């Protein structure tokens, strides 16, 4: 169905090809997963299928790509629209119309299908994707999972033979990701659609793949094989595979179910051992910069820690309620953050995670209750004072970066934070070795940009650090570096709050997990206790080794060592 014949792509201005020697074939009705670290050219390979590379992006494509017998060299993307459906990383930039039903019909209108055919297919697709209840809704009001399903539906209606998806579940919470994957399963099984997709969250998708194409390094020829074979050598792999490699299982199990059936002996070996506790190290908070002109009355009320006593909380949230646009975003939330503690804030899209982070940095004004960060009320503290108490890395790290070069960004950050010149640059060199002063922040990869934004925030040395969805778009390597870095910061006494959907990240890092649902805290306790009891938030290793309480493959590795 899709055939790559010795394809290499060189973008204009690049001195070497982004991908080289791509030579494989995807037979009809298979689900093929494209894996590899960030920047190895996954999106380029996907774009080449729909003809967007090179017709739209520019550059030179050598070799030949054929889809359903059509050569992309002679067919423009619009002429392939009836055989290839492409959904990019951000569904919102994919929508042309404003309601669900019109969006589903748009592609068919462009192809000139007869009105009665369109009508029938829209109804069929609404049912297939479970969107019937949303047909008249404005797309902007849908949740992330619903938007992703509409995006998939909108390319499905012309009945393409091939579906190309770039990171369809990265931005979704576990339940919404299941929704989308269930739909893909159904398409492959019932309709015989050929699916080619790239995804970083392998733990979610690898078990559905018929075959895996691994791009081992930029410009290196891809490896093709069954999931188990490729995972055995892949530099990126989900925790279940990591555990399988650790235990020496062969063939490698890809699903939790397979692994559980093999894990009896491992459970026996681990019996009696306990995971190294991930209790927060009681640490002294980094010295709080003395606020110079903050209102004095607030300072007086600040609790002064007595020597030898429990360290004062870095932040205290009491009975916080937030109402925004007529929606109760948060309701009676209590939270206390000690220095050196890492907390994972989890819950569905729209459960109030970002609102809680927003109220900790003063972006959101509480409508009830109180928030104190190092003694200050965030939304009444001038930003200049606040940055030295609390720092937030937003979901889109790029929002924090304004300057043209890394050096200029660092200089601005030092000035904003009133830190000694060079503070931020030193942090950048530590986090991102090898990034030169004149690099444009836009040319950095997702992970590098996140590190730069983190350095900018850390220049002010805030005792409380907040991260919103830090692992979105990060590959396993970048994630491992982030985990190491955050651990170090926690050990130095920073309190860290992560709002995340990534259960594996929470398992690796968090001392405590706080679950939010509809703006209320529904669970707050040590990570092991909270995630073990939840089916959707339990990490894979926990599911495999239950009832023992292991969270990560690293813990198991340490225990066995």
């Amino acid at each position, binding site marked *: 169905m899709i055939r790559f014949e010795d394809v290499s792509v060189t973008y204009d201005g690049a001195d070497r090809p982004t991908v080289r020697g791509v030579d494989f074939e995807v037979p009809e009705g298979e689900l093929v997963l494209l894996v590899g670290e960030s920047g190895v050219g996954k999106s380029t390979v996907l774009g080449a299928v729909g003809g*967007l590379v090179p017709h739209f992006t520019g550059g030179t494509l050598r070799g030949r790509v054929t889809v359903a017998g059509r050569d992309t060299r002679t067919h423009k993307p619009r002429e392939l629209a009836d055989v290839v459906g492409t959904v990019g990383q951000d569904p919102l930039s994919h929508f042309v119309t404003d309601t669900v039903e019109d969006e589903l019909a748009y592609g*068919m209108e*462009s192809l000139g299908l007869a009105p009665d055919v369109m*009508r029938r297919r829209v109804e069929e697709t609404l049912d297939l994707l479970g969107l019937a209840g949303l047909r008249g809704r404005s797309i902007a*009001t849908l949740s992330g999972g619903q938007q992703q399903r509409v995006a998939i539906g909108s390319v499905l209606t012309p009945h393409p033979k091939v579906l190309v998806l770039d990171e369809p579940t990265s931005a979704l919470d576990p339940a919404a990701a299941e929704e989308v994957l269930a739909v893909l399963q159904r398409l492959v099984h019932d309709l015989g659609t050929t699916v080619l997709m790239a995804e970083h969250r392998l733990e979610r998708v690898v078990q559905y793949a018929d075959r895996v194409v691994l791009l081992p390094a930029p410009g290196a020829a891809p490896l093709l094989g069954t999931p188990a074979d490729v995972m055995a050598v892949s530099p990126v792999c989900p925790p279940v595979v990591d555990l399988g490699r650790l235990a020496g299982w062969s063939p490698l199990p890809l699903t939790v179910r397979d692994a559980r059936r093999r894990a009896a002996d491992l459970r026996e070996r681990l019996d009696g051992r306990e995971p190294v506790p991930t209790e927060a190290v009681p640490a002294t908070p980094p010295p709080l910069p003395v606020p110079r002109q903050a209102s004095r009355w607030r300072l007086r009320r600040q609790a002064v820690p007595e020597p030898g006593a429990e360290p004062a909380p870095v932040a205290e949230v009491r009975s916080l309620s937030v109402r925004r646009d007529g929606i109760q975003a948060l309701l009676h939330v209590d939270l206390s953050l000690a220095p050196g503690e890492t907390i994972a804030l989890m819950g569905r899209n729209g459960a109030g995670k970002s609102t809680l982070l927003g109220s900790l940095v003063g972006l959101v004004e509480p409508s009830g209750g109180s928030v104190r960060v190092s003694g200050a009320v965030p939304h009444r503290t001038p930003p200049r004072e606040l*940055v030295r108490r609390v720092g937030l890395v937003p979901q889109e790290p790029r929002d924090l970066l304004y300057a043209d070069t890394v050096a200029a960004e660092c200089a601005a950050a030092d000035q904003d934070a009133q830190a000694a010149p060079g503070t931020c640059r030193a942090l950048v060199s530590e986090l991102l070795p090898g990034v030169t002063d004149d690099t444009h922040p836009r040319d950095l990869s997702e992970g590098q940009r996140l590190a730069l934004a983190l350095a900018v925030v850390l220049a002010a040395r805030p005792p409380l650090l907040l991260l919103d969805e830090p692992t979105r778009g990060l590959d396993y390597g970048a994630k491992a570096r982030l985990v190491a870095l955050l651990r170090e910061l926690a050990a130095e006494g920073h309190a860290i709050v992560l709002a995340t959907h990534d259960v594996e990240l929470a398992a690796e890092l968090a001392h405590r997990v706080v679950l939010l649902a509809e703006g209320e805290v529904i669970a707050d306790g040590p990570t092991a206790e909270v995630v073990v009891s939840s089916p959707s938030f339990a990490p894979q290793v926990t599911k495999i080794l239950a009832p023992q309480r292991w969270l990560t493959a690293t813990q198991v590795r340490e225990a066995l060592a």
Partner: protein
Amino acid sequence: MRETTVHAGAWWLWALALGTAATRTTNPLLLGLLLAVSGYVVVTCRSATPTARSYTAFLKLALAVLVIRLVFAVVLGSPIPGTHVLVSLPEVPLPDWAQGIRLGGRVTAEAVVFALYDGLKLATLLICVGAANALAAPTRLLKSLPGALYETGVAVVVALTFAPHLIADARRLRAARRLRGRPDRGVRGLLQVGLPVLEGALERSVALAAAMDARGYGRTAEVAPAVRRTTAALTLGGLLGVCAGTYGLLTAEGGTYGLPVLLAGLAAALAGLWLGGRRSPRTRYRPDAWNPRSCAVAGSGAVVAALLVLAAARDPEALHPGVVPLVAPALPLWPAAAVLLGLLPALTAPTRPARKEPS
């Protein structure tokens, strides 16, 4: 449900006809009646789309227009001669070359009332456009464009959906300034996020263009060269004819040939558009249909406009209550009854079942 809805064009005709009616009168009672009629229809017939909520924005805009008109009348004075002095503002003496302009001075009741009537007329017109917007989103109207103009229509739709994105981006980036420890309020804050916002918009446009291309936007059908040439000739000739005809109508000596040339030009241009539509293989999904209800809606608006134009010609005093001398406006019976005909859509057009809003 969708079959029984009213064609978007019908709603726009209805609302614009009400607006036309509003321009024929300055009688505050009639204008108030027009406002009530359009407001009632909007409340009963509007759909649950986001544009439906823009009605309140139009109401606020209309109020602002009214207030500005009054402030101008008070501060800059008015040519209306009046005897009832309400208040005397200190007058700013202006040099000779600014003769005819006055700052401050006497404020008469007559001038204020005149400004009020005038402002109310404009406000009513605005609110009628707002009603059209709330009853049928402009995007729905664009769907009814002829095939040849389709691509322009999509460009407009995309531009319309981009504005809200731009505002959301600007808000997010201003919030991010606070995270950097810079003040997030004030004009400077807005200016500094300008460039990143535009950058983001540009990137999104490129992504959208790619998505549209991949979904078949801009596919063309093969047309015979003869048809292509005829299309070009018809369109160009038609537009030239329209220009010449308009010129003829507006000049004194062209009274004879003006109208026929204009009509012929229009016909040729429309034929060109229709032929041009054959190049695009597009079809339409569930187009709005002109059903009897649509006719009733458009017709009721047209009748209101026609009757008020007639009334304005027959009985101008009733529709333009006197300001000098100041008299209380009376409600002219027949024009008022004509305005009430505008309520017809509320009786015939089905109300859409209230959709459950996302919580």
